[in-house]
């Protein structure tokens, strides 16, 4: 009568503990809430990896849905995903921009020359395919820090206005593309198209011309 509820308490506590620990089995401790999602890219002025005279700013990545791929030649997983990224570029026309940073190029005690880095990059891209429209060279790894990058590879999906819509830590493979990145990419492309269509519509209104 009165004793029954008390006996149940340990059982309830125990099952709560089991549920809590069971969830822990499948949670990924590496998964962090990205702080940059929904924000535009942080300010930067960085050189092109291959032509250091060309510089890029966040504005360089506006106007088109872009996937920024954080990578380096020292990163094994990057080499693994590279052929698939190239395939995505060739088949779906996905625009990838590399945010390259080098591990051995210590900003304080540089041990590697830029030419050496360029050589390594060229040979790696020749071997695994080149998915990149261009590569931004994050010399001091400051921009990576501002983006909350913890390693490589990581990906930032930008919409046409240059706003970060997804931060994906880890590689993009077929499964990740189909379940996570791909759907958002298609949605953003559709959004971008509808926006430009509106612009085109207003243009036709102004000039009175009709689209073919």
């Amino acid at each position: 009568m009165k004793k029954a509820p008390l006996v149940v308490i340990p059982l309830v506590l125990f099952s709560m503990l089991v549920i809590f620990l069971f969830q822990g089995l499948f949670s990924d401790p590496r998964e962090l809430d990205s702080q940059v999602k929904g924000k535009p890219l942080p300010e930067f002025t960085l050189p092109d990896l291959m032509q250091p005279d060309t510089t890029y700013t966040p504005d360089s990545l506006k106007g088109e849905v872009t996937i920024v791929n954080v990578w380096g030649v020292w990163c094994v997983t990057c080499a693994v995903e590279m052929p698939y990224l190239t395939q995505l570029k060739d088949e779906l026309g996905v625009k990838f921009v590399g945010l390259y940073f080098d591990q051995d190029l210590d900003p304080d005690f540089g041990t590697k020359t830029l030419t050496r880095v360029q050589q390594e990059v060229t040979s790696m891209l020749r071997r695994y395919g080149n998915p990149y429209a261009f590569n931004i060279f994050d010399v001091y790894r400051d921009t990576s820090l501002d983006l909350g990058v913890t390693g490589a590879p990581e990906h930032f999906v930008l919409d046409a206005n240059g706003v970060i819509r997804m931060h994906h830590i880890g590689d993009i493979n077929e499964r990740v593309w189909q379940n996570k990145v791909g759907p958002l990419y298609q949605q953003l492309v559709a959004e971008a198209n509808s926006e430009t269509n509106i612009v085109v519509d207003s243009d036709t209104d102004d000039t009175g011309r009709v689209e073919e």
Partner: protein
Amino acid sequence: MKRLFVLLNLIIAFSAFSAEDNFAFDTPAQRAQFLSLTAELRCPMCQNQNIADSDAMIAHDMRRKVYALLKEGKSEQEVIDFMKARYGDFVHYQPPVTIATMWLWAAPVLFVIFALLFVVRRKSSTAPQDIKAKLAKADALLEQEKE
């Protein structure tokens, strides 16, 4: 003796664990600030290591950034906020009190309160019964004695 020697070697090996950089500080106070900050900021790449202890590249870069920010004259809180803005609350070993983390403090207190209530209630409800039973027993004994 041999065992002791091995143990001693292990201790020496482990004590040389924390990663080293060469940073020059303006004042001893700044150095102390740097050491305490790198001890309480957590490396986002490695599980459960502070950035003072870790040799991951990200930890190295974060130490460099902490150093640069301190040199700029930023306060400790400003440096922590800078890192939190990039890596979230995860990066600091002192979790802020939110609805989700409140339970870390509340749960033990609640447990103690409920346990105390439970003990007190059980005592007060069982004690009189005990005494009554004992009195009854004593009465019975007295009755027996009388006979």
